[in-house]
C-alpha cells in the first residue's frame, strides 16, 4: 500500500471521529446526572425504590451492551412498529448502560464520606440538598476520580459498537477500508486514533486530579 493511500485512508477515518466523539460526549454528559440519581435512589430508605435500582444495575451489568443496543433500537419496532433515529437509539442505550456503572462508582464514593460530615452539616442548618451539593459531592468527586477515568476511557472505546445498528463511526469506516483494501493498516490507523484520544482524556483526568490535590 502506498503512502498516499494510507494518508487517504487516514483522512476517511478522521471523518468518522466526529460521530465517535459525539456519542462519547453526549453519553458522558447525560449518564453522569442519571448515575447520581440512580446512586441516590439505590441508597434510599424506601425498600422498593432501592430494590428496583438494584435490579436495574443487575440487568444492565449482567447483559452485553451489544444486546442492549439491539433491544433499545428494535424493540419499539417489533412491539409497536415504531422505528426511530439510530443515533438516538445509540445514545439512549449507552446512557442507560453507563449510568448503571457510574452509579455504582458514585455510590461507593458517597458511602465513603464519613457520617460526621452530614451530621456537622445538619447541625449547621444545611438542608439535605445543600448538604449533598455543597458538602458531599465535592468530596466524592475527588475520591471517585481514578475509577471514573477508567470507566470513561472504556466508554470512548465502546463507541465502536455503534455500528451494530448501522451508525457509521470511525471504527466501522476502518473495517470497511480494511476489507476493501485487503489490509490491516486501516484497523491499525483506527487503533492509533483511539490511542491519541485516550491519551488526551487521560491528560484531562490527570489535570483534574492534580487540581483536587489541594487537600487530603
Amino acid at each position: 500500500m502506498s503512502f498516499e493511500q494510507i494518508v487517504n485512508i487516514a483522512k476517511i477515518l478522521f471523518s468518522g471521529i466526529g460521530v465517535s466523539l459525539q456519542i462519547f460526549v453526549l453519553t458522558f454528559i447525560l449518564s453522569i446526572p442519571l448515575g447520581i440519581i440512580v446512586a441516590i435512589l439505590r441508597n434510599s430508605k424506601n425498600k422498593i425504590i432501592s430494590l428496583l435500582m438494584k435490579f436495574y444495575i443487575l440487568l444492565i451489568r449482567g447483559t452485553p451492551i451489544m444486546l442492549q443496543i439491539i433491544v433499545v433500537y428494535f424493540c419499539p419496532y417489533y412491539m409497536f412498529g415504531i422505528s426511530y433515529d439510530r443515533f438516538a437509539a445509540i445514545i439512549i442505550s449507552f446512557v442507560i448502560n453507563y449510568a448503571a456503572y457510574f452509579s455504582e462508582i458514585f455510590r461507593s464514593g458517597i458511602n465513603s464520606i464519613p457520617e460526621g460530615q452530614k451530621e456537622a452539616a445538619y447541625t449547621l442548618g444545611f438542608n439535605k440538598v445543600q448538604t449533598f451539593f455543597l458538602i458531599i459531592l465535592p468530596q466524592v468527586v475527588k475520591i471517585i476520580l481514578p475509577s471514573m477515568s477508567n470507566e470513561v476511557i472504556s466508554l470512548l472505546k465502546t463507541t465502536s459498537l455503534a455500528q451494530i445498528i448501522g451508525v457509521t463511526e470511525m471504527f466501522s469506516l476502518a473495517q470497511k477500508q480494511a476489507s476493501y483494501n485487503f489490509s490491516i493498516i486501516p484497523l491499525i490507523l483506527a487503533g492509533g486514533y483511539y490511542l491519541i484520544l485516550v491519551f488526551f482524556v487521560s491528560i484531562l483526568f490527570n489535570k483534574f486530579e492534580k487540581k483536587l490535590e489541594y487537600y487530603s
Partner: protein
Amino acid sequence: MNVLEVECLSKKFENTEVIKDVSFSVKEGETLVILGPSGSGKSTLLRCINNLERVDGGNIIINKKEMIKEYKNNKPIYNNKEILNQINLDTGMVFQDFNLFPHLSVKENITISLINVFKMSKEEADKKANEVLKKMDLKEKENCYPCDLSGGQKQRVSIARVLAINPKIICMDEPTSALDPELVGEVLKTIKALAKEKRTMIIVTHEIKFAEEVADRVIFMDGGIIVEEGKPEEVIKKPKKQRTKEFLKRYINLEDNSMKELDIEENKPREVISFFKEISDIPRESGNEKKIRDYLVKFAKERSLEYYTDNNFNVIIRKPASSGYENEEILGFQSHTDMICEKIESSMHDFSKDPIKLYQDGDFILANGTTLGADNGIGVAYMLAILDSDKIKGPELECIFTTQEETTMIGAKEIDGKQIKCKKIISLDNGKQGKMVISSANCLEWFGEIEIDKTNLPDDENFVKYELVYSNFLGGHSGGNIGDIKRGNPIKLGIEVISKIDEMYIESLEGGSRVNVIPRNFRISFYAKENDYEKMKEKINKQIRFFGEDGKIELNKFYTQIDKANKIENCYENSTKRKFEKIEVFSKFTTRKVINFVNRFVNGPVEYDENNNVILSANMGAVKMLENAVRFEYSLRSNDIILRNLYLENLKEIEKTNNINITWEQELKGIEPNYNSSLVEKCAKIYKEIFNVDIEVKISQGVLEGGFFNDKIKGLEYICIGADTYDVHSPKERVSIKSIGEVWDYIKQIISIK
C-alpha cells in the same frame, strides 16, 4: 430563663436502653458539664438534643420550642420541619473528631453556612468569619485547609464555626478526646474563655480538673441515668454516691473519704508542718528557686537573723547560740529547697505557678496527683522551725539551703566555702527514719571511645545476619540500685554472648542511656556463619540472667543471599521488604577491642564492707555509635579510696590495651565513712536513748551534696538523717506525720544535748 429543658428523655438502641428517663434543664449563660464512664449515655444525650438521634420517649424543649409534638401509640411524632429547623439553628455542636469540611479552607468552613443557610452576602460572611477566627486566634490560618492544621487548631476552627452561627446553646461532645495530650490545653483554654463570656454550654468531657474549673453545674451519668447533680465542688470534691466516687477515683486519687485537706491545727508537730505548708505554697521546681530564696531571705530579715545568699539562690541563715551554749561548736544543718515535679496525666497542675495543696490520708501527707516536695521540703521545714523557735536551747546554728539538688547539684557545687563556718553538718535529705548515712560516694565518670575501623564483609554466602535485642530490663540509678544484681546489665550480657561466637562481624550496637543510669536495653546486629537459629539461641539460653519480670531478650535472624558483587539482600523472616546494600562491618581488630573491653570491665557491685554495704561499684551506663567511633559511657562509685585506686589501675590497663580514647572525665569528690566521728557517735547515742533501738549507720553509693562541701570545709563531719518518705519523685510521694514528729524530737535533742 431555661434555654434547654430535657423531660423524661429515653432512648433505646435496639433493645438496650441507653438513656433512661433523664430530666434536666440548662439556664441561659450556664455551663453544664456531663461526666461519666464510657457508655453511660452522655454522648447519645447530646446527639438527641441536636436531633442527630431520634428519641423514644420524653421531650426536648429548646428556647421554648418543643422537639416532639405528641405521642401516638407510644411513638413520638416530631414537630414539623420549620420548628425543627429553628431548634436546629438554636443548637450548635462541637464534635469529638471535629468534622470539618476537608475540601474547604478554614474560612470557607465558617462562611459556607452563613452564605447558604443564613443567606448572608459574601462580605458579611467574611466579616463574621474574621471576627470569630480572630477570637479563636486563628486569623493567620484562614486560608489553610483542615489537613494542614494540628488537632488543637482543628477543634478551635470547629468551635469558631459554631460560634459564627451564634446558637443559643453550644453542645460539646468530648472536645479534647481525639487530641494529643500536649494539644488539649489550648482547646480547654478556649472553652474556658467561652464559659467566662457566659455562653450557654453543655460539655461532655473526661477532663475532671477542667470540669471543676469551667462548670457552673455538673451532672454525673452512669448506666443511662443521672446519678448525681450539683455544683462542681459538691459533685467532684464531695461526691455522695458510691458510683460517682468510684468513677472519679480513676482520675484523681482524692475523692477517697479517708483523704481530706491537711489541717495544720490537728497535727503535730505543728511548728514543722505549718512551715512545710508555707513553703508548699511557693512553686520551687528544680532550677526555679528564686521565689523560695526570696521567702527565706524575708524569713531571716523578719527575725533579724544573719543571712547570706548567692547567684545560685543558695541561702545560709545563722542563729546565735543560746545562753550557756556560747562555747559550743557551731552546728550546721543542710537541705535543698528544690523539688522534682512529676504529675499524673490528668493533673492540670502548673508547677511554675500553682501552690501545692496538701492533703492528709491517715498518717500520710500527700499532694493531689503531683509530687509532694517532701524531698526535701520537710528538711527545709525542720530548719525553718529550728530557726524560728526560741524554746530550743543550743549552740550557734547554721542552716544551709541549697538549690538544684535534683538536677545539676550546682547549688552545693558552687556555694562559697568561706561562708560556711561550721565543721559538723547534719543533712536532712534522708528519706528513712532509723537510718543515718555517713558517707557520700566518690564518683568518677568517663566517656571512652574506640575508633571504628571498617571493612567489607568477606565474600562468603554462608554469612547470616542476626540482631540481638535486650529490652525492658529493670535499670535504675547507678548509685542507689547498683547493689541489686537482679537488675543485670544488658550491655555486658549481650557482649558476653557475642564473644562466644567464632568468625563474627559486628555491624552496629547501641544500648543504655546515660552514664549514671543502669542500662535497660541493648541492641547489636552482627554477621556470623552459623546458619542454625536454634544453635544460636542456645548460646543465649545458657546465660545465667537476672533481669526482672519485664526483661526480654530476642534474637532475630535475617535471611540473606549474597551475590557475586558482595551485595546482600536482607529481610526479616516474614518480611516482604527487600533491599540491596553493600555491607560494611567492624574490622576484626575493632570487634575484638569492643568485646575485650566490655568483657574485662568489671561491672556492678565490686566490693562490700563487713555490713554488706556496697563500697565500690562500676556501671557500664551506655554504648553509642558515633560516626567513627564506639563510645562507652561508664562510671565508678566508691566509698574507699584505696580499693578505688586498685580498681582504677586495673581499668587503666584495660583501657590502654584496647586503645580506649578518653574524651570526657569528671570526678565528684565523696565523703569517706568515718564511724568514729564525734557527730556520728553523738547522734547514734541520742537515737538509742530516745527510741531504744540502734540507728542503722549506712554507707551510700549515692552522691550527696555533702560531697561537695568536703573540699570547702577542712575536717568536715557529715551525716544525713530524715523522716520517712515514700515513693519520692513520683505523684504518689507521701510523708509520715508520725515520723516527722519523732525525727523532730530527735533533732531537738541533737541540738540541745552538749
